[in-house]
């Protein structure tokens, strides 16, 4: 979860860029991606966004039953996506980048509505991406094409999964409209 200081920092960035975002949270209290009618970004740092500036906690230990994401710090967003290919979702890709060279920033997007769904990590499976390959948000990817509620988990990749130090900064970006409904956000 987020501390106040980080949240305020995020809001400062908002006014500077024109986009609204808050860094990720946990399965129990996910962060939010706010409605936007254009390209947007969200960012955070899994090394320092935890309580008191510490690393965040691991939330999803296994993704899609086949990817071992144990131990690594993670942040979670909960988003309600419009259907791909509709006026509500003209964004075609979601990408992630990081300036932390040793951190293979990765993201895992999958359907779910409850914190248990989040912690399970699928199935149902969605799709995943990393610094070299983003997530396809078009109708071509049936796993994430339908309208609905999704969890987006940010962390390291499978090979880095077992080290608590597999963390770093990240920046999410979507390339066009990705309207999402605000979800509840709690501050620890």
């Amino acid at each position, binding site marked *: 979860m987020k501390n106040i200081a980080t949240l305020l920092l995020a809001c400062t960035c908002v006014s500077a860029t024109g986009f609204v975002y808050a860094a990720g949270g946990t399965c129990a209290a996910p962060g939010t991606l706010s409605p936007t009618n254009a390209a947007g970004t969200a960012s955070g740092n899994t090394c320092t966004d935890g309580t008191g500036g510490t690393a965040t906690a*691991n939330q999803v*230990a*296994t*993704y*899609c*039953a*086949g*990817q*071992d994401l*144990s*131990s690594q710090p993670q942040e979670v967003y909960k988003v309600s996506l419009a259907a791909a290919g509709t006026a509500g979702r003209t964004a075609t890709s979601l990408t992630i980048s990081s300036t932390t060279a040793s951190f*293979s920033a*990765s993201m*895992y997007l999958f359907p779910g509505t409850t914190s248990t769904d989040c*912690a*399970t990590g*699928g*199935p*149902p*499976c*969605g*799709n*995943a*991406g*990393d610094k*070299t*390959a983003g*997530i396809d948000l078009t109708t071509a990817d049936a*796993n994430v094409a339908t309208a609905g509620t999704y969890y987006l988990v940010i962390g390291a*990749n*499978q*090979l880095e999964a*077992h080290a608590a130090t597999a963390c770093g900064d990240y920046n999410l970006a979507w390339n066009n409209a990705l309207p999402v409904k605000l979800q509840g956000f709690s501050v620890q």
Partner: protein
Amino acid sequence: MKSMQMKALALAVLGLAGFGVAGSAMACDATNLAAWNGGVAAITGGTVTAVAPGLDASACAMSSSLGTGATSQASVIDTSPNNEPRYRFQFLVDPNAHVTNLTAQDSVALFTATNQTAAHGRKTIIQVFLVPTSTAGIDRISFSYSCNNGTTYRCIHTSPVNLVSGVNRIEFDVQMATSGANGSIRYWINAPAGGTEPAPSDSVTGIDNSAWVGTKLASLGLGTPAPHWSSAHHGEAVLFDTFDSRRQTYIGH
């Protein structure tokens, strides 16, 4: 103890022939994978298809290949296990049919069994990998497994037994600890034919893994690629067939 078969999902005809049209040639398509109740996980460039022929003289096998991304996955998922404290599984795999020789930097997961909830930050009970040997074209398996080592809670074991070129039959018997460190992992690589359990090819005993309760989800197919696998072996298919899982008795063939 009574034999309790949990799942016999031929990625081919074995479990599905009864649904075929009598007298017609069986096509290899998505219907061959429909018995996997967790569905197909083809993620980040991963591809899972049914192809002909099968690995056990059946009509079809499962072809699994990954994309270039580190998060790529190409597997089928079984959600029918019920937190099984003992979980035996067997599958056929042909790692060489379409994969160029592995180098020391290559590894990729073939199978994963996970617990329902995390303990010590982990859910994976066992993950079986394909790894190279020092001899080109000769591979082995290794596996990571949850263990109470007090630090990483993840232990690794590499098989001393080489895989053969072509089709390999791999069977595991994973037992969760009931008291202290009395869990174990036994496995057979290309065991002789027969239903009587032979001595295992190798085993790991003294595992304290009771915190992970038992298998709830199983995933068969490729995942967790090493960076060199992603760059040098993306798109290269590993073939799987004839998955079987049981609670108690040796599976054999």
